[in-house]
Structures are given as structure tokens and as C-alpha cells.
């Protein structure tokens, strides 16, 4: 009797666990949009904390410049190397510059910069807010009649969203320089032709679409990091879990939304 009832219960258990996962997924999405909505609500409310905004902008923008720049530089270099080798086979080396500049501005610079920032800033936002949560600092803010979303999350999300486009602009420039240096310096491409081809097909819209993407990615990764941190439970272990989840989730959402953004923007 026990065995048969267990057999009958198996599909139910499966359904139950599926249901639990679905509920958890919906809860996650709900939290993301709750934080996003209240961040936008509090964004334009007094008091405006200029000092905090500036501090966060330095943290996201200035301090991330070396790592983003290095990423872009080497991406441009390897892109030039690979496409040169490939295009050489059908004598189209002249177009390497175009490929490098177009793929960098439209796609690689925004996505790679966003992934680097997700690792660097998304994780630290989750860890910072998470440890403030578990040490009751967020409750303390609330107890001092200060909305934690207003004081903590608004400057962080605003700074990340505002700083990603300029970072990506720098990445665009450095990537193109990296490509130029490899193609011209290493592979022996004609510098004048390379330079001309770099800008021949490049439209201002290509650059702008990349920058818009960057801002959206910045919004996504900062809200994800803050949400994960804000709803942390379970002490130091919980902070670790939130930090990992923030980076993984932000990276996945960046890559998925990249497809849809590209579809809309081009």
C-alpha cells in the first residue's frame, strides 16, 4: 500500500517542486521590478544627495576605467588579428578596420564593458547592501525615517546608468586603437587605408546605439545587484549567495536583453 501510494504521489511531488521553482522565479522578477519602480519613484525626490551621487560615479566610472579600457584594448587587438587572418584568405584585408570598428561600437564594447562592470560593481553592490541588511543597517536607516531605497539604491543605480555610456565610449576608442596597432604594426596593413576603412562604414547611429545599450545594461546590472543585496537573508553565507547570484543573473540578463535591444535599436 505504501509503495503504490508513493508511486501515485510522485507526479504530485514533481508538480509541487516545479510549482515552487516557478513561484521563486516570479518572486525574483517581482522584486526586480519593485526595486526598479521605487528607485525611479525616489530618483526625483528631495533631499538630493549630490555627495553620494558623486562618490558612486567615481566608484563606477573612474575606478572601472582601467579594467574596461584594458578589456576593450585587447578585444580590439584580438579582433584585428583574427579577422586579418581570415580576410587574408580572400584578399579582403582592407576591410579589417571596418569590421573592428563596427563590431566594437555596436556590440562588443557595450556588452563586454557591461559584463566587466557586472563583475566589478554588480557584485560589490550586492555585497555592500547585503551586509548592511544582515547587520541591520538598512533597518537602522528606516528607523531614522530615511527611505533606504532613496538613500542607498538611487545614487548607486543612477551612477551606474550614467557612467556606463562614457565608459563604453572610451572602450570604443581604445578598442579601435588596439585593432589599428595590431593590423598596422603587426600584420603590416596600410595605415592610411586601415584608418579610412575604419570610419568609412561607421555611422554615428552605430555608436549611439551602443551607448544606449550601455545605459540600459548599467540600469539592469545595478538594479539586479541592489535587489539581490537588499533582500539578503541568512548572515555571511547569505551575503555570499547574493553576490554570486547578482553577477550570474546580471550577466545572463545583459546577454539576453542584448539580443532584444539589438533587434529594436537597428
Amino acid at each position, binding site marked *: 500500500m505504501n509503495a503504490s501510494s508513493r508511486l501515485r504521489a510522485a507526479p504530485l511531488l514533481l508538480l509541487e517542486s516545479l510549482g515552487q521553482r516557478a513561484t521563486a522565479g516570479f518572486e525574483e522578477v517581482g522584486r526586480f521590478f519593485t526595486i526598479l519602480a521605487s528607485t525611479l519613484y525616489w530618483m526625483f525626490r528631495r533631499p538630493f544627495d549630490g555627495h553620494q551621487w558623486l562618490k558612486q560615479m567615481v566608484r563606477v566610472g573612474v575606478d572601472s576605467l582601467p579594467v574596461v579600457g584594458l578589456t576593450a584594448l585587447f578585444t580590439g587587438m584580438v579582433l584585428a588579428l583574427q579577422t586579418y587572418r581570415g580576410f587574408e584568405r580572400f584578399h579582403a584585408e582592407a576591410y579589417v578596420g571596418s569590421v573592428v570598428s563596427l563590431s566594437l561600437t555596436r556590440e562588443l564594447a557595450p556588452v563586454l564593458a557591461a559584463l566587466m562592470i557586472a563583475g566589478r560593481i554588480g557584485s560589490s553592490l550586492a555585497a555592500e547592501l547585503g551586509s548592511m541588511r544582515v547587520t*541591520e543597517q538598512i533597518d537602522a536607516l528606516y528607523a*531614522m525615517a530615511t527611505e533606504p531605497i532613496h538613500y542607498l539604491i538611487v545614487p548607486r543605480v543612477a551612477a551606474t546608468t550614467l557612467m556606463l555610456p562614457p565608459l563604453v565610449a572610451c572602450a570604443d576608442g581604445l578598442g579601435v586603437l588596439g585593432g589599428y596597432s595590431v593590423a598596422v604594426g603587426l600584420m603590416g596593413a596600410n595605415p592610411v587605408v586601415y584608418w579610412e576603412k575604419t570610419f568609412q562604414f561607421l555611422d554615428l547611429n552605430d555608436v549611439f546605439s551602443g551607448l544606449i545599450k550601455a545605459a540600459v545594461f548599467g540600469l539592469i546590472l545595478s538594479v539586479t545587484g541592489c535587489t539581490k543585496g537588499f533582500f539578503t537573508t541568512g548572515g555571511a553565507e547569505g551575503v555570499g549567495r547574493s553576490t554570486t547570484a547578482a553577477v550570474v543573473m546580471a550577466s545572463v540578463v545583459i546577454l539576453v536583453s542584448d539580443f532584444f535591444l539589438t533587434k529594436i535599436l537597428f
Partner: protein
Amino acid sequence: MTATNPSTPVPKIAVVDLWKSFGGKPVLRGIDLEVASGESFVIVGGSGAGKSVLLKHLIGLIRPDRGHVIVDGEDMACADPAVCLALRKKFGMSFQEGALFDSLSVFENIAFPLRRHTSMSEAEITHRVRECLELVHLPGVEHKAPSELSGGMRRRVGFARAIAMKPEILLFDEPNTGLDPITSAVIDNVIVEMREHLPVTMVTITHDMKSAFRIADRLAMLREGTIVAAARPEEFRSLPDPYIQKFIAGEPLEEDVA
């Protein structure tokens, strides 16, 4: 059972039939209590009895499933944001480990609510911060970082921050937990002194009976999500309830001795 104090007609804080459960597990099961203006009210109870949850309801950090928290005749579950903010400004709260902002110095921690909610000048803020630190007997630590302070000092800086805005109600979440007996007594003295110097109503939760008797005007025992008794300290000591007697004496219950 209610914890109504008949001698005070208008309670500062009234909790009416408060229910709360987390993940289907009931934590508070119909709490009724009243705290009179100017009183030092202490809620004692074992770990997991729901003390912290109850305290967090008072200030609105947690919303009840059912029931009300009424402060000065206004429900904490208010709809009007302005009323909400005004109500929250009546409170000062001290957290278990102090909950100081570790990115700010002691001075900035205490100045935080002043900068946020008042138009005081820098000089006035400096003066007020000094005053608060003197009240908790910690002069001269303004420029230290919270991480440089001992547990007892952090707790006291937390008190100083809680009283900076001259709140009408002070809440203490386990002020003595994790401190040695001497530091613990110092903390109790600071609380008693603050009570003498400031026109405040205090609600403290603790499981330290020694400390509870030192600071309380009235005590309530919370067990399994309900208030089982509330009385003045001298009456509380002689309550016949065996659980309370064991709790005061610090002895195990018969059912726990196996």
C-alpha cells in the same frame, strides 16, 4: 491576556490583537499591550519567542498580518506618507549590534539623522553630537570608525544616535546580548540615566532578567507569541506561573530535562 495598565488613561503605544506569521509559521499570536507615556516597559522572553518581531512591529519595520499598532492615537499602518514620516520621527531605535553605518565615523553616524531631517548648522550639529555622546559616557570618540570600538561602545554609540533627534519613544533591541556582566551593567546604568534625563517612553526587549529588573517600570513575559503576564517588577517576581519563576531563576523547565 492583556497587558493593560489601568492607571494610565491614554497609552503612548497600544498594540491591539497583533498577529504575524512567517512562511506559515505563526510568530505572534494575538498580542495586546499598552505602554504608558514616560514608562520604561521591558518585554522578556526566551529565544524565538517573537520579541524582536514584536519590537520591529512597533516602529513599522514589519507589517502585521492582523491587528494594529497605535502610537499617540495614530495607526502605524498609515496611508498618508506625511503622517507616516511624522510617526517614524517619534522613534529612536537601538539595534542589537549597534547597526552603525560602518562607512561613516562615529560623528557622522550620530549626525546622520540631524543632517537628514533638520536644518541645524554644522556648529549646532557638533554640539548636539557631543551632548549625545556625553549622555552615554563616551566623550571624545567622535572621529573613530565603528570598527575601532568595542561591542559595548558600539552599543552606546547606537544609543547616542537613537537619541540625537530627541525622540519621544526609544526602542532597545537586546541591549545587553553578548556583553560581559560589567559592561552589561554599564549599559543598564546608561539606559536608566537616559530615562531620568530625557522625557521618553522606553520599550526594551531582553532575555537578561537582571538587566530587566534594573531598567523596568513594568515587565511583560512573551511566550510562544503571546503575552502571558505583565506586571511591575516586585509583582512580577512573585507571579505563580512556573515558567516565569524558572525564567527568573535561570533554570530549565521539567519538560526540557530529559
